[in-house]
């Protein structure tokens, strides 16, 4: 739930993406080309935004007559200080890893992540080096934002 809310917040933080969702709410079922024409954004930008919005499940796509048509996703955002605290202060995989391996383990993690980011180690090799499962490794990469940098 927290990730979902954060991804919605991230997307809404970009006015162009927010405009795209608002446009789709009014004109449901437009193609990327339609969006580019109506909103004046370059087509590659529209595709990039649509990919990100789809990943955040904020727009949905349907293929009709070989054309991909986009619709607004079904989402609602409720934000309050308490909600943010609940979302961001909750324990994550990083906390579990730190409790298990301590500060030294965190240092080792950073070193390994540098190799992963440079492509000098696969995710699975990194997991094996750290003595954790692939799932933990991917969760750690995701939580720290290391693979998206």
């Amino acid at each position, binding site marked *: 739930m927290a990730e979902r809310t954060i991804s919605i917040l991230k997307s809404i933080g970009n006015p162009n993406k927010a405009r795209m969702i608002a446009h789709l709410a009014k004109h449901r079922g437009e193609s990327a080309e339609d969006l580019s024409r109506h909103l004046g954004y370059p087509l590659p930008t529209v595709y990039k935004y649509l990919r990100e919005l789809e990943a955040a499940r904020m727009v949905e796509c349907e293929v009709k007559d070989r054309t991909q048509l986009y619709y607004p996703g079904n989402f609602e955002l409720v934000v309050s200080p308490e909600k943010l605290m609940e979302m961001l202060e909750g324990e994550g995989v990083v906390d579990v890893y730190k409790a298990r391996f301590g500060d030294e383990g965190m240092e080792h993690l950073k070193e390994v992540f540098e190799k992963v980011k440079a492509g000098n180690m*696969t995710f699975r*090799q990194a997991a094996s080096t750290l003595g954790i*499962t*692939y799932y933990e490794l991917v969760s750690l990469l995701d939580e720290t934002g290391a693979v998206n940098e």
Partner: protein
Amino acid sequence: MRRKRDEGYEVLIPRAIANELLDEPRKYAEEIKVASPALASKILNSVETVNTAIKQGLIKVETVNYRKYSEIIDNVRKHLSQLEAKPEHTVKKGDPELITLMIQLYDKSREKVLFSTKDKGLLKALKPFEKRVEFEVLESI
């Protein structure tokens, strides 16, 4: 994923990766459930999502033909172990199975295989096999 299926694509993963997505997190959630119940429950929910996608056929678990592709698997394993100067048996099954499955699919269909990953190391490991398989890397599916 539904869109890819509607477009006629099949999303395939080898058995070793299905285990990484289902069995490993279940075990992990079990290990942490006393100390971190909320996180354990979140992990189990995500496992259930993957499990449902497999049951609904959105993700297909494919078996690698070990007999036919044993040499490829060995080569990938060797290549990865050399990169890290580690014994071959420490190479996790997922990487060799994934690369081998791509080759197996290409051999079968002779159509370009689309490969979705953020793992730059895995893409490097795939490089020596570029002549065996025609592929394109997708950012996400």
